[in-house]
């Protein structure tokens, strides 16, 4: 696992993540959020680990629709 420059799990980000979940980030903050997700591999990895861990058992089988290449 890469060591993130910005730690997604840092307590300092708790309030920011809560606002993101609540949909109350400004356009500028959303843009910065996307920029960090795109460019910070460690941050993105931890973020995706967190999202995956929130999946309810069983949902993944229902939702699984791995994108397939066009024929």
């Amino acid at each position, binding site marked *: 696992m*890469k060591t993130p420059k910005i730690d997604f799990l840092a307590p300092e980000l708790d309030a920011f993540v809560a606002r993101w979940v609540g949909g109350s980030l400004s356009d500028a903050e959303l843009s910065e959020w996307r920029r960090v997700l795109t460019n910070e591999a460690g941050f993105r990895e931890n973020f995706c680990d*967190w999202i995956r861990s929130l999946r309810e058992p069983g949902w993944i089988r229902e*939702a699984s629709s791995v994108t397939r290449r066009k024929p």
Partner: protein
Amino acid sequence: MTTRSGKYLEKALWAPWIERDDRSVLQNCADESWDPSYCLDALREVLHPIVTSVHFSGYSRWGVQPSKSSLESLLLDFTRYLKEDGEWKALHARWQRAEEKPFSLPLFLTRAYARFKAKHHPDRHDEQVGEGRDLSPVALVPGSVSAPLVDAFFELTRQLPEECRLIYQLHLEGLLDPEIALILRTDLGEVRERILEAKDRLDLRDFRKGVGA
């Protein structure tokens, strides 16, 4: 989001965190001076799904449940950690700041639990052997070569145009299409199109390199 899957994710991830108000639970815990045993009982309803999903995700996806004693032991360890590492204090302070909205106990506890796990049980990937990892394209690479190869592959994604780069990166990390759509607040069809576009672009460039073009 019109798919059932997307609706489910929205309900599972977003709504409970925004709609729930667990302030009375926190107040009761504060009144008891954050005694771990009391807090564990008070928070059991919130903590149980967090611990089972985050810590035992691999097991639950295979239909195997952790033993009651190991789950109980983890819950108590986590509750102690909340107090001893200052997480309670931070939660309490945040809860008292009325201007900070939304306040969601499950959301903050989920992040606190992830920190607890990283600090005290950093063997997460060994335990998470279920479908969540299997679906990740990068997880298909054998362990001994995975790190450099995966890094190299992610480097390739830098060549992608901005509109499909992040979507494809999240796809490579193993997020499902409806999850990506919800996270980026975009259309599910758009997500699928961008993933296919990224695959086409990367394949074409590799092919050209391979033939020396």
